[in-house]
């Protein structure tokens, strides 16, 4: 009985330990690696406390904020998600912090010789894309619309990383991912012409629970230090 009471206390204490000293970052999964470096860089200039990372699909971020999860800043892969979150929280504005583009992911060395989005319409190929409900999927839909290509994917993955995995494992012949995802390795990227390539915008929203430190973090992202981290990971300014 006493052991249980003690455990309960520790859990409650742990839950309460956050707000003042710690900054919790909710990021879209495509921002996973860059966020780790951003957190480190920020801690270097503002060592007031830890920066915790929580990566998930953008749609999960919305659910989390709606459900009152203790997030202080969110980084999303599209405007719609950022606006939805800003509206829910009703405190900070959406701030565009970086950009990205789409690219076709194929097996290393491009053995099937895929050259353009129109090649993906070939019914013999197994193509995977992100589900439309996910930002990467929305961008993919936009891309396909602009390219005037009708595609029947084998699967609508829950996240763009899922698409990447399927191509890397050899289960899919090709997929549409972000340019930044190419850095993960194990795949070759086939570029998509600028004419049809949608610009992917990344937004940051500081949430009320993060207070001034959250705002500080968002501002940091726009500084040259912050932008350098983005560039290192393949993002466009």
């Amino acid at each position: 009985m006493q052991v249980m009471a003690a455990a309960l206390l520790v859990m409650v204490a742990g839950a309460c330990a956050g707000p003042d000293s710690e900054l919790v970052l909710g990021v879209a999964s495509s921002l996973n690696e860059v966020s780790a470096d951003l957190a480190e860089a920020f801690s270097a200039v503002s060592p007031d406390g830890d920066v915790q990372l929580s990566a998930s699909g953008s749609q999960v971020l919305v659910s989390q904020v709606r459900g009152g999860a203790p997030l202080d800043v969110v980084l999303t892969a599209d405007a719609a998600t950022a606006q939805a979150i800003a509206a829910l929280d009703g405190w900070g504005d959406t701030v565009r912090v970086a950009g990205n583009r789409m690219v076709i992911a194929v097996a290393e060395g491009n053995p099937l010789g895929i050259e353009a989005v129109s090649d993906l319409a070939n019914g013999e190929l197994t193509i995977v894309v992100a589900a439309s409900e996910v930002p990467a999927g929305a961008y993919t839909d936009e891309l396909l619309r602009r390219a005037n290509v009708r595609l029947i994917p084998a699967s609508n993955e829950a996240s763009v990383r899922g698409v990447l995995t399927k191509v890397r494992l050899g289960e899919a012949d090709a997929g549409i991912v972000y340019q930044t995802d190419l850095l993960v390795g194990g795949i070759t990227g086939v570029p998509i012409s600028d004419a049809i390539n949608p610009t992917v915008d990344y937004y940051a929203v500081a949430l009320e629970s993060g207070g001034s430190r959250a705002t500080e973090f968002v501002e940091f992202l726009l500084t040259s230090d912050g932008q350098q981290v983005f560039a290192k990971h393949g993002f466009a300014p």
Partner: protein
Amino acid sequence: MTRQIPTRLAALAVVGVLLVSLPLLGLLARVPWTGFLGDVDDATQALQISAVVSALATLAAVTLGVPLGWVLARGTFRGRTVLRAAVLLPIVLPPVVSGVALLASLGRSGPVGGLLDDLFGITLPFTTAGAVVAATFVAVPFVTLVAEAGFRGVDRELEDIAATLGAGPWRRFRRVAIPQAAPALAAGVVLGWARALGEFGATITFAGNLPGRTQTLPLAIFFELEQDPEAAFSLSVLLVLVSVAALAVARRSWVR
């Protein structure tokens, strides 16, 4: 009778019940009952896929699991413990791990999947068959577990008598063991079906997500959550109601 339950245990039991039932009650409270039927109607495709996949998976799970349960209950070979542990593994594995394992072995580039592709042109990922495989994988352990327990409960003396009456091993299995274990086997079928119906992690990892082919009801709910949360609530409640009905049926034939 309740006087005989110590207060401490009763209190903990109440907490347990609350923990399990509050989320479900909360869900029921949020369902927009006016739009319920409409939401369900929109999900017809997912419902159909779920119905087909879970039915086929249950059939496969029973065909494999019941004999497995028999072998584990009556077999006297060495390594039975290891076999049981291997068969029950999917129960303790996180479903996504099951999916990863299936992908690694039965995927296009996997040892078995590659063979299937080369020799027969069969690929399982991204197909309804793949969804059936994923659901079967997670359902078989349940059927096996319950079947083994059921068979263990069959009086061996009855089988002995059947032997003296001229019944060989197959006839003893079919005409004595199965009828005697019938309540447990029925419960196993229902549990296996419920598990197959609710499968998510392995399905999305191995079979993928394509409406009309691999998007089962749980997958539809997951993606619906961001488009139209209320529809997701409706569909979730539907799944809960179906599962509750299944458990009620299973319990009746199990606890006799």
